[in-house]
């Protein structure tokens, strides 16, 4: 089912503030989708609207063929895992997981089997008698997920699921959550501000900014073909560096005051777009360190370097603009001037004023 969850021009305003400016999104059954954006972009509000805990000002939502307008949250069969987990402190782990089943007046034996199954799924089968405050943060989160999954929801919503976990746990829970999704098969929408989470876990990512979706695509799409410079620098670690280049009267290009002759492929791409100025987006792993006079290179000065284990991240300055380069070979000395040559096919070109990507590769 390709349009399992269909969000149609959903808008939300609080007084004078427009939090969502007409969001449209179509999500297939069984997909794991991330809503990615900085805080205040409206992603959590969208999640609340889908769950029915917040009401949209305009637009409509369809889930599994049913329009949700007017359907209260408690009749939507949508599981929500809150950022705070929101476990009921007066109920044991098993009672928490049972809560939704009791609301559905499920028989004792069936409910108990369902609780066991949900706790097995999150690997907490032996902690059913504990109270929430006796669990670690990671365990509490798994209880919250088990509780949401126990009702066999039509949709699972995760609100910043990893933000309350420590850094080490976060990486393993990322994998766990994805595996859990693959086992349970529940269509999942996750809200996160962390691009690494979104890119590593989701099948498709909606990048949100200022109440609108700026790009909707697979993680590869978003990494390789960001719709604008904001997304280019927001996704990927390290993020892409942006450099402004100006076309020179005599032909050729300048970065700051330094002349630069791009390689033929790149020069052809630049000529194709006719702009006098262009923002180049360069990924750290797609630019090479070469001799200062090598063809296609521009010169830059090393300012600092970070050791990252597998290699180093070198930071260069070129006329006040900064550029990061991933490098595994020998390291130049700080202050040394070297040549940097971007790989012609991998350079992203953005409009200087609008930030929009201006050619399709």
């Amino acid at each position, binding site marked *: 089912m390709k349009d399992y969850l269909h969000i149609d021009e959903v808008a939300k305003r609080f007084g004078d503030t427009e939090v969502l400016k007409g969001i449209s999104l179509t999500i297939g059954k069984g997909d794991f989708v991330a809503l990615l954006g900085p805080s205040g972009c409206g992603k959590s509000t969208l999640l609340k609207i889908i*769950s*029915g*805990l917040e009401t949209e000002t305009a637009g409509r939502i369809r889930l599994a063929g049913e329009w949700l307008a007017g359907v*209260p*949250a*408690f*009749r*939507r*069969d*949508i*599981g*929500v895992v*809150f950022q*705070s987990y*929101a*476990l*009921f*402190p*007066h109920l044991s782990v098993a009672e928490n997981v049972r*809560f*939704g089943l*009791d*609301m*559905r007046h499920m028989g004792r034996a069936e409910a108990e089997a369902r609780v066991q199954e949900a706790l097995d799924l999150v690997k907490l089968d032996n902690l059913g*008698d504990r*109270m929430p405050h*006796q669990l670690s943060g990671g365990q509490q989160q798994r209880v919250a997920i088990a*509780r*949401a999954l126990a*009702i066999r929801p039509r949709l699972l919503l995760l609100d910043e699921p990893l933000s309350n976990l420590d850094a080490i746990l976060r990486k393993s829970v990322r994998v766990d959550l994805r595996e859990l999704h693959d086992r349970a098969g529940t269509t999942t929408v996750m809200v996160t501000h962390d691009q690494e989470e979104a890119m590593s876990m989701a099948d498709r990512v909606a990048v949100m900014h200022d109440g609108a979706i700026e790009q909707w695509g697979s993680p590869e799409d978003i990494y390789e073909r960001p719709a604008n410079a904001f997304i280019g620098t927001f996704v990927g670690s390290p993020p892409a560096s942006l450099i402004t280049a100006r076309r020179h009267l005599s032909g050729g290009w300048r970065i700051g005051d330094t002349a630069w002759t791009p390689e033929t492929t790149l020069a052809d791409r630049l000529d194709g777009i006719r702009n006098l100025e262009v923002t180049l987006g360069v990924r750290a792993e797609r630019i090479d360190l070469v001799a200062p006079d090598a063809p296609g290179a521009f010169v830059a000065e090393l300012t600092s370097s970070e050791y990252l284990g597998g290699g180093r991240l070198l930071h260069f300055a070129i006329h006040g603009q900064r550029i990061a380069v991933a490098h595994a070979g020998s390291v130049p000395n700080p202050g040394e001037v070297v040549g940097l040559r971007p790989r012609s096919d991998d350079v992203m070109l953005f409009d200087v004023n609008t930030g929009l990507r201006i050619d399709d590769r």
Partner: protein
Amino acid sequence: MPLPFLLPAFTLSALVFLAPFVWLAGTSLRVQAEGSLLLSDGVSLSNYRRLFADPFFLEVLLRTLLYSVGTTLISLLIALPVARFLVTRAGRMKGILLALMLVPLVSGALLPSLGMLHLMGPLGVVNGAARLLGLPTVKLLGTPTGILIGLVQSFLPLMVLPLVNTFARLPLDLEQAAASLGAPALAVWRRVILPLAMPGIVAGAVLVFCAAFTSFVTPQILGQGHIATFGTVAYQQAGQVLDWPFASALAVLALVMIGLLQAAVSIGSRLARRREVRP
């Protein structure tokens, strides 16, 4: 803190609270000499024997208990939605509304009761309005209903305040989680809000119950002397009959009952807490 610094506080407490109580308890064991206001020698339990033997006093005790329980329940029913509204919806008005709530509490028992007199009297606001609308009038003064209304009006803030406190500490997430799991509003209240607000409910109930049980001015004024409660009888005995030993016995009985209630509540809540930390 070292003991010497606490000594002044201990001394003051002993002088102001403990000593009068001890004196009260002692007096309750004495008897007045026949036909005299002076206490005769020797101690006895005869005041207490009289209390439990005379059906009049048992009736008063029972009636007062009934009024107190009634006041507590009605206050709870009113305070739950009111406190909830103050916490979740009142917004900027919360401060003003809370201050208004406190007025009956800080203005003493007398003024509100006199106000209620004007509301409920035969020529009062309620019956005046009823007459204007051609409805039958109701007798409120001197009836249990009137006293109950007065008691609820006086002691409602004692229920609202602890509830406001508890509700303010309940995360909204919990209710939203319950709703997302399929709980309609009523089930959210029953399964999540009320159990978690229990400490506040218990605190408010104890306060209102004790205040109602020992109240004197409200039943005296609104009862119009027709209805005897613990407070009015104790006042009669101490202020009019001038039988201080017997009035003391009444007071001791009230204190013991309140003490028993407190003990029951504290044991109950300790048991509830034990359930939460079971392994």
